[in-house]
């Protein structure tokens, strides 16, 4: 911000913090903000705690797979083809994979791509959604019309189908390219929600008041509209992380996602498919970790929606 914006900013500041009204409120009935209220409600739910603990474990596995594999397994780096597809045993609770590597170690190593893809795609989509949603909802006009049509077009491409058709044309892609493709296909829902939120708020009395006090568009959007518009988008973003992780695994499973010798849950499930009947542990463990991660994000998103939506109370 340059110096020229100071004066209206100060005016806006004054509008935001008016002198406290003279109503006397007993201290016991102090009003909590929506955020504090939501936090109190979230804290009381066991499912939220379960989800947080699960995600904490998954994050640890994604950040430091080496430490965890050496802690939890004996000889986790060691693969012997003689052990191929052996089931769970005392020293190796998850058994062995096709190459005779300890499956627990392999499943731990498979955490990182899933988590990175889910978080990176969602963060990028969220950024696009917030910027486009704010600009389109606030200014309207030709920009809004153009972006809405483009959103329609991208919305017309189903997630897995669209990713399949693009990724197959580029066989040598890594995780980065997958994140890019999934973002390209995944930003539309959040953008639509953000836009409709901003449209509803841009006309609100408090925004008009701030505008009349001289707040400039950038300030109106960032300080006044954004904090009130973002909650539903954040909820959808949390649900979206789960959806992206699930989608990434599906693409790996289909053979258009990550390619060997990368290690990921989707690839492990892909390798397991031929041996499901005789060696179900190959399918079970990566599926368990994958589902637990997706479930955690969904539970968090659901809980956040309930906590932040006053209509559901």
């Amino acid at each position: 911000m340059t110096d020229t914006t100071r004066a209206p900013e100060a005016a806006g500041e004054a509008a935001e913090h008016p002198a406290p009204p003279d109503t006397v409120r007993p201290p016991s009935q102090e009003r909590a903000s929506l955020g504090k209220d939501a936090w109190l409600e979230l804290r009381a739910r066991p499912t939220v705690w379960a989800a947080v603990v699960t995600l904490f474990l998954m994050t640890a596995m994604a950040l430091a797979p080496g430490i965890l594999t050496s802690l939890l397994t004996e000889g986790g780096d060691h693969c012997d083809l003689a052990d191929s597809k052996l089931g769970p045993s005392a020293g190796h609770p998850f058994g062995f994979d096709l190459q005779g590597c300890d499956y627990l170690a392999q499943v731990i190593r498979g955490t990182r791509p899933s988590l990175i893809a889910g978080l990176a795609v969602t963060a990028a989509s969220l950024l696009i959604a917030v910027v486009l949603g704010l600009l389109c909802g606030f200014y309207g006009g030709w920009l809004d019309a153009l972006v809405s049509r483009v959103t329609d077009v991208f919305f017309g491409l189903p997630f897995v189908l669209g990713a399949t058709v693009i990724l197959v044309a580029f066989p040598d892609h890594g995780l980065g390219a997958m994140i890019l493709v999934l973002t390209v296909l995944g930003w539309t829902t959040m953008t639509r929600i953000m836009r409709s939120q901003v449209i509803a708020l841009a006309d609100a009395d408090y925004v008009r008041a701030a505008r009349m006090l001289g707040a400039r568009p950038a300030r109106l959007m960032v300080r006044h509209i954004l904090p009130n518009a973002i909650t539903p988008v954040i909820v959808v973003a949390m649900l979206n992380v789960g959806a992206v992780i699930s989608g990434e695994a599906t693409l790996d499973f289909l053979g258009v996602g990550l390619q060997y010798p990368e290690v990921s849950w989707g690839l492990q499930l892909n390798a397991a498919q031929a041996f499901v009947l005789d060696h179900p542990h190959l399918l079970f463990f990566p599926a368990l970790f994958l589902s637990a991660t997706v479930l955690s994000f969904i539970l968090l998103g659901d809980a956040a929606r309930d906590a932040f939506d006053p209509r559901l109370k």
Partner: protein
Amino acid sequence: MWRFVARRLLHALPVLLGTTFLIYTLVFVLPGDPIQGLAGDKPVPPAVLAELRARYHLDDPLWIQYTHYLTGLLTGDLGTTFTGRRVSDLLADRWVVTLQLGLTAWVLEVILGMALGVWAGLRKGKWDDSVVLFGTTLVISVPVFVVGYMAQLVFGVQLGWLPVAGTEEGWPFAFLLPGLVLASFGLAYVARLTRSSLIENLRADYVRTAHSKGLSRRRVVVRHTLRNSLIPVVTFLGLELGGLMAGAIVTEYIFNLPGVGQQLFQSIQLREGPVVVGTTTALVLIFLLANLLVDLLYGLLDPRIRHD
């Protein structure tokens, strides 16, 4: 009404053009050699490369390339396989299977999903509501291919209730299990959507009015509340047609159903790019047309949308 239809059609046209253009650009114009990509791991001789570049009009300007591609699509030309067969011929006799599977799944979603949702919504807070909520969350988080293998293992192999794979038993028996697997995600979603929408509407003023004028509970729920609660559900069920198309790839592969999805899966494994691109484009087009149809039906069902 006709003005509404015309407006929807006009609205759909740029989306159709835009989506096909997007697929085309992303596959053929982005950096990287598309011909090499389509050919997979094998090196391409220069003569073949030149021939292929000419066939796909890759040396023309972008808009001419796209026009060629679009006219091809409009005349039903989805490209050719490496062995020279037309992709549309390859798929011709497979559509029936995919259609049977998709419709089975869709009907299961409508009936079971709505029934579960209404049941849970009417018994909000009771134990069976919690069971439905937890069960549907679980189903949503497990990827469809895991659900598929588990269902195959339990119902097909161990219990032996339904055929494990293949279409020998004919419709509907052979399609029940794959249909249920394909429907699982959407079914759970429909149940949750119906539940929350019903709960929200049950608190509305018009429901209280209906109760207070002495209508039976059944009549209030079925005639008044449910009708208004189903609008978001109908929207989802329309969009879901596209989700079923994508899900069919995995389900048809797992249950060995000779449909379009299975062809797509096999082509992906064989790295046969042209077939993958052609088939996927066809599926996306069907998805878009289904959406348009649902949009039109939706306007028919809800006058507020028609006159908007």
